[in-house]
């Protein structure tokens, strides 16, 4: 064979010319987050919240149920799954907190660190636009959000459909999947705007994470102090209602039991005189928006579309902050 | 050093500095006379450490350094006679340039009025556009910041000036102005030690160099002195003339001439171990032999070649 010339070699291979590079940017951002504790936290978020009881039971009993081959039988895990579409709405509302946490974990440093190292100069020297960059980062933050909220819903929905899928059941639950997808989209928009917007203003990942946590905690704290949720005042009722679900024998009984649980516990409602301050907590406003998507009534302290304006406005504003920061980077000094 | 010569401005004896197992300076000895001296060397050679020792920022692990005859460590009186322009960019962003330089002058002991006038004079000498004097330093370009750094180093009319890459960020006009400033300062009596990687500009500013490599001082003196000591590498002399082969034949007769080649039409390249004699021979031939010489030069009698020979062997 001829000796290989070790100088510069031209490139004669294929080149993709069309399309946006946002996906590549998102993949790159996600790949850097494959740290073990991020994955661990992801799994943890699936296990906690109101999913805890049902998911753990599902994991514990599913194998034995398969071996006994008794779908619709009295295996304990079947009875544990609630039969009311409200279950899915509530689950997503609880997971909202985890969505923000996971989104912050993945995304807090993205813009801050990039600004520190001048990465935008690198990106814009390639055939990549500032819009590609922002979309790619938003996509990266949206992935854990969707994994934490929409994915468990989809899995549990599929499990429930598999074992209890009657036509009436599908009729009741027709709205669940589309609503879950829409809520996932809304959450992605809000969390990526919030996290990336704060990241754009911070100088380092550490400050961004601290700022995000600080903002969340303070907003949540103010809301909890001014307008404590009803959840806190009815723990005993909640436990009794859960026991009733586990004891129920038929799907109709389970459905009624879950309705009672839903009525007893309403984290969005508040007995306080300043109940409307509940909307200050981002999770609460998002959960209220989720209720609208699922077609459920929203408590009276969330009048009209105020929570939508809050959520969309905050996200749009923070995206604006991000965009301004990205635009301000000079590529050639 | 013979009697009657000027006392050295900087003196270093057995200077060593290490950081754990890493040695930054290894038994360095030199004496720098008044004038401009350049400190050159590859990255990691120890130049920054040497400057830090000389400015009193760090202490040597062994040996000693003397600036104007005194130990620079913990010596505020000496610090007032010394100016330092480091490479790091550390200016007070919120101040405007004259206030910043004036503040530093006050720290060195000048009164408010004197500090202000010195600051403005220094900024003018460094070429900072007076229109920019009212703006905060945070808005300055790289070149403007460099000028501020230089101004604060010279505003107190130091006797000794240390500069680390003083021309970074400046455009060619600025570079030339700064070189002229350094020359003017040297003529005015300031002794200057400049560290720089741009060897061509170093050559245009001064003849005396200190070459550091791997924490050791490889060479000290003028470029031509050092070159003549490098006898491992015969000197190359190029002559562009009309009858190179004829001249080559004559030159070959000279003692010390290793080889003479005619690589292309009209060009002669001689390699010799006795450059002085060979040059004289060429001058005689050119003057008396009727050759039409268009150029006489030595491609390797310059700092870059010396640097390469010393660092790469």
């Amino acid at each position, binding site marked *: 064979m001829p000796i290989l010339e*070790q*100088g*510069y070699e*031209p*490139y004669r*291979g*294929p*080149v*993709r*010319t069309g399309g946006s*590079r946002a996906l*590549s940017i998102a993949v790159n951002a996600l790949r*850097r987050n494959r740290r073990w504790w991020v994955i661990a936290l992801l799994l943890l978020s699936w296990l906690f919240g109101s999913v805890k009881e049902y998911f753990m039971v599902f994991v514990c009993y599913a194998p034995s149920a398969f071996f006994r081959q008794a779908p619709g039988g009295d295996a304990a895990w079947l009875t544990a799954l609630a039969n009311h579409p409200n279950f899915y709405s509530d689950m997503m509302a609880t997971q909202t907190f985890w969505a923000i946490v996971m989104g912050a974990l993945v995304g807090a*440093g993205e813009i801050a660190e*990039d600004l*520190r*190292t*001048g*990465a*935008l*100069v*690198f*990106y*814009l*020297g*390639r*055939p*990549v*636009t500032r819009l590609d960059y922002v979309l790619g980062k938003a996509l990266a933050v949206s992935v854990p959000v969707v994994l934490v909220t929409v994915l468990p819903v989809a899995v549990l929905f599929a499990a429930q459909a598999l074992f209890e899928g009657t036509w009436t059941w599908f009729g009741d639950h027709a709205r669940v999947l589309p609503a879950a997808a829409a809520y996932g989209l809304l959450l992605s928009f809000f969390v990526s705007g919030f996290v990336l917007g704060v990241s754009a203003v911070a100088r380092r990942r550490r400050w961004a994470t601290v700022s995000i946590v600080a903002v969340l905690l303070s907003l949540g704290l103010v809301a909890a102090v001014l307008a404590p949720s009803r959840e806190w005042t009815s723990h005993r009722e909640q436990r009794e209602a859960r026991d009733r679900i586990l004891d129920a024998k038929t799907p109709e009984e389970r459905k009624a039991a879950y309705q009672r649980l839903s009525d007893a516990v309403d984290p969005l409602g508040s007995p306080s005189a300043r109940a409307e301050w509940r909307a200050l907590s981002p999770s609460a406003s998002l959960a209220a928006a989720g209720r609208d998507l699922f077609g459920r009534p929203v408590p009276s302290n969330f009048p009209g579309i105020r929570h939508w304006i809050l959520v969309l406005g905050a996200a749009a504003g923070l995206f604006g902050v991000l965009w301004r920061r990205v635009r301000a980077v000079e*590529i*050639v*000094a | 050093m013979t009697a009657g010569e000027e006392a050295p401005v900087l003196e270093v004896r057995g200077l060593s500095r290490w950081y754990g197992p890493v040695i930054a300076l290894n038994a360095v000895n030199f004496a720098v006379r008044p004038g401009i001296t350049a400190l050159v*060397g*590859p*990255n990691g050679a120890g130049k920054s450490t040497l400057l830090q020792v000389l400015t009193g920022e760090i202490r040597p692990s062994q040996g000693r350094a003397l600036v104007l005859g005194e130990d620079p460590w913990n010596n505020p009186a000496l610090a007032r006679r010394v100016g330092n322009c480091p490479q790091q960019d550390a200016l007070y962003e919120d101040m405007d340039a004259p206030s910043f330089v004036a503040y530093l002058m006050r720290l060195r002991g000048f009164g408010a009025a004197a500090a202000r006038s010195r600051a403005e004079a220094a900024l003018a000498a460094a070429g900072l556009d007076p229109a920019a004097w009212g703006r905060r330093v945070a808005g300055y*370009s790289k*070149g403007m910041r460099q000028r501020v750094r230089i101004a604060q180093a010279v505003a107190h009319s130091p006797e000794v000036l240390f500069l680390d890459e003083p021309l*970074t960020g*400046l*455009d*060619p*006009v*600025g*570079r*030339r102005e700064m070189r002229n400033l350094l*020359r003017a300062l040297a003529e005015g009596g300031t002794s200057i030690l400049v560290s720089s*990687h*741009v060897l061509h*500009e170093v050559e*245009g500013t001064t003849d005396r160099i200190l070459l550091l490599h791997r924490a050791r001082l490889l060479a000290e003196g003028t470029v031509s002195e050092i070159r003549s000591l490098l006898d491992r590498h015969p000197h190359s002399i190029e002559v562009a003339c009309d009858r190179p082969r004829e001249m080559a034949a004559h030159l070959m007769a000279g003692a010390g001439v290793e080889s003479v080649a005619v690589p292309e039409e009209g060009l002669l390249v001689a390699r010799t171990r006795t450059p002085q004699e060979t*040059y004289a021979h060429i*001058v005689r031939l050119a*003057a*008396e032999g009727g050759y*039409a*010489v*268009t*150029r*006489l030069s030595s491609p390797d009698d310059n700092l870059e070649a010396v*640097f390469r020979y010393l660092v790469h062997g």
Partner: protein
Amino acid sequence: MGTGEPVVSLREVTRTFGRVTALDGVTLDLPPGAVGLLGPNGAGKSTMLKVLLGLLLPTKGSLRVLGVDPVADPVGARRRVGYMPEVDSYVPGLTGVESVSFAGVLSGLPRAAAMQRAHTVLNYVGLEEIRYRKIEEYSTGTRQRVRLAQALVHDPDLLFLDEPTNGLDPDGREEILGVIRDLATRHGKRVVLCSHLLRDVERTCDFVILLYQGRVARQGTMAEIRTARKDWYRVTGRGPLEPLEEALRAAGCTAARHPGFLLVGVPEGTGTASVFRAALRSAFDLRSVAPDEASLEDAFVEAVTGDGGP
């Protein structure tokens, strides 16, 4: 590459920022080979680069870069252009090779090809084992090589290099300049080199464009810019200059001292003969005689400030 449409052409390109005119009716065609783009700070170099890269729209005028109009298709303009920025810029958390490979992917290369290409290019710019470490750990010179590799990974036909030798030690500078020269001569790349280190530009570029106050103040081949003045020579040597100066004046020449050399003017058309004769007569240790060629720096300073001479 044959003749035909020039690789980069600008026609009356103007760009204003409020009241400031950064580019004022610039018209030029970029010749092949290595071109030096010079200018004082604020002359419009960075604005011109941004416009060529499609990152900024011109207020007036039109331009074409490698057959693409950056106004209409800014992303397309950057596809076949390699840009090496002056500032330290890298994606945090990536190793050297990952970074170059990512750059390739962003330019449209398939993932596996981008990784292969990254390794090849890193070999070319001289990065060895260190490519597997994170860029955070690199020295300035190594980071600069990575930026050059990123500019080359997609095999562009046109390269914009912004101060590529900034902060490098003499060896590093030699290597980078060698690479640039190699790319321009042996591999047919068009290279636009922006640098304040005019000596580097002299050694690497064949053509020079000098911008000043938003306009092309001078352009030409290196030989044209560095015009040699007939009957003037720069003379250096060792020892006292007075005897030589006397001998020169006696021979009808003029002698003026400049930092580093003696500027000698000889009677018209006589060449260097008088100089050598004067040196012989005065026993001066003559070391070099060269035609008084304006260095690029002289030409630059003259064009910008209006005073010639060193």
